[in-house]
């Protein structure tokens, strides 16, 4: 079946419950939806056990869905996976390679199994920085080098769609930056990238769109900027000499003010110049006026209700299960 849409990945109402022989059941996906359009670098976020990897595994035919519809590159998944597989590069969690093979041999075997020209092996080894270490056995690789090899295997096919589950896992800071640059290069070459990660700052730097999942349901989706702006309360940090007087002045003007040890946090600020004007008129000179823009981490923690409480560790299934906040995704 060909779906009449431009989405590279389309998931609707995906459900999956894992059952045990003893009659136990765990709902991994509970009507999950996601759309990834062509050319996006799409971040896929969620707390541990929220269903990210199950979604990717289901999409790639490794796990059977109980219900729902999926398509990749306009073709129904998993039925049409054999036809679209040559255009899809994927790594799921930390892929295991045969330890006694060298990285180069591992890629050559994959290339042979997938009918990819052998010349691609050298190209991808260079691309991920393993060209000079390609003849070493994989079991001697560090976690980061294995991760690079995994990415190389995903790139081998010159895919139209790249699905990366925790690609920065185990990478050193330089490796993380290289991975970031690599994804940007791939995106600028027209490749759609779906990347799941726990490193939210990285996602914010790399991705243009994001989907957040919690307890098997989508809780937010859309352009990163739109998701963040949805949580922008117009807050500013204000430092002045007399915090009490300043708080009175701004509070009297109707702005919500929170007093901290050495600064104020003022919300609902339309024009920050108004604050300097009001305080300056009363002889209080502002030493700092900083907009408090929400970052992806704080938004993520709010959306999934996983903000840690000191002394009361959050349990894995304590994430929130709210309705979807859709922030402009096209469907």
């Amino acid at each position, binding site marked *: 079946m060909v779906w009449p849409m431009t989405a590279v990945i389309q998931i609707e109402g995906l459900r999956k419950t894992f059952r045990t022989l003893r009659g136990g059941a765990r709902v991994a996906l509970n009507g999950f939806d996601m759309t990834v359009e062509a050319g996006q670098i799409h971040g896929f976020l969620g707390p541990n056990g929220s269903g990210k990897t199950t979604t990717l595994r289901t999409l790639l035919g490794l796990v059977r869905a109980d219900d729902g519809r999926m398509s990749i590159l306009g073709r129904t998944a998993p039925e049409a996976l054999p036809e679209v597989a040559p255009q899809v590069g994927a790594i799921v*969690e930390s892929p295991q390679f045969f330890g006694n093979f060298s990285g180069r041999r591992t890629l050559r075997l994959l290339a042979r199994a997938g009918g990819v020209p052998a010349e691609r092996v050298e190209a991808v080894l260079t691309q991920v920085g393993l060209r000079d270490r390609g003849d070493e056995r994989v079991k001697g690789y560090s976690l980061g080098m294995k991760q690079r090899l995994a990415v190389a295997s995903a790139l081998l096919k010159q895919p139209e769609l790249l699905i990366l589950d925790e690609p920065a896992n185990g990478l050193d800071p330089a490796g993380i930056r290289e991975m970031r640059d690599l994804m940007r290069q791939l995106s600028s070459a027209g490749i759609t990238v779906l990347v799941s990660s726990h490193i939210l700052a990285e996602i914010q730097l790399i991705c243009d769109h994001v989907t957040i999942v919690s307890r098997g349901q989508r809780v937010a989706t859309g352009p990163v900027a739109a998701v963040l702006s949805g949580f922008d309360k117009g807050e500013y940090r204000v430092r002045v000499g007399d915090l009490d007087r300043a708080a009175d002045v701004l509070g009297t003007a109707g702005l919500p003010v929170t007093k901290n040890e050495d600064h104020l946090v003022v919300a609902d600020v339309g024009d920050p110049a108004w604050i300097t004007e009001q305080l300056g008129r009363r002889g209080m000179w502002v030493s700092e006026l900083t907009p408090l823009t929400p970052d992806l981490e704080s938004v993520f923690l709010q959306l999934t209700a996983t903000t840690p409480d000191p002394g009361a560790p959050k349990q894995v299934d304590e994430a929130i299960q709210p309705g979807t906040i859709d922030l402009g995704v096209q469907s």
Partner: protein
Amino acid sequence: MNLALAELSRLVARRFVLLMTVLLVAAFGVTVATTVASSHRPTAAEVAEAEREVLFAQARIEQIREDCERQRVSPEFCEVYTEREPRIEDYLYGVFVFSQEITDLVYFMIAFLALFAFLVAASFVGAELTSGGMTNLLLWRPQRVTVLGTKLATVLAAVVALSAVASVLYIGAFYAIAEVGGVPGVLDGEFWRDLVLTVGRDLGMVAFAAAIGFGAATLGRHTAAALGLVATYAIVWEIGARIVFEVIEAATPDRYMLSSYIGAWMAGEVSFWDQYGDRQYELTWMHAAAVFAVALAAIVGGAFATFRHRDLA
């Protein structure tokens, strides 16, 4: 074809396969060395003594047959004594006689090769399922039956090819020992036909062992599952059930044991007496083939059926 070649590369590069191959060569080497050490080329005196013993044995057998017929016992009973003429090699002591000993040596070789095939095939798929290698492969070729089928076909072809080569080298080595340090014995057309059929059936045994190991490891998602299946079967059925059959005085317990059919397959035919010792029955290689087919359908068929729908970690 590309997938099969890739699988073959993975198979031959496995350290476990290399280790098993070394053990195989070592076991064969020990067998050959022991045979060389315990055999010698018969001297003229030993041959002359053997010829005398043959003449004596022929006279003794003839006497017994005549006595037998005089007592008018059934002709079949008397025929036992004349079924096979005594030969010189029967009376050459400490001499390796190829025609007499090669069949048992081939059984030993095949037992080792079957064990080798079982373990290699089980670990080939078990290790991939445990490590996530299978998942990796399915991301490249999302066709489960094709991937698993190619893996099975590759390991079957590899172990059967290795066993065929090993059989030729093994039999050739013992033939050379017989020519140089023993005696070949009577190597007529019937001997070679029987030997070829035995080796052919035994290669089938190797393939059966490999397929069962592969199927059990796939069903249990682990190499250890195949070993567990064999251990459980041996203890619960071959030992436990046999005791129960004896207690309840079942007439033909051997008929229900896989080991009986393995014996029938390897030898071509085996005979068993019932519990009361008054009725003999035969199991042939055709009975064994039927039992093997059922076992393969259950274990290998079950492995493919479950693998098609299973969630993979």
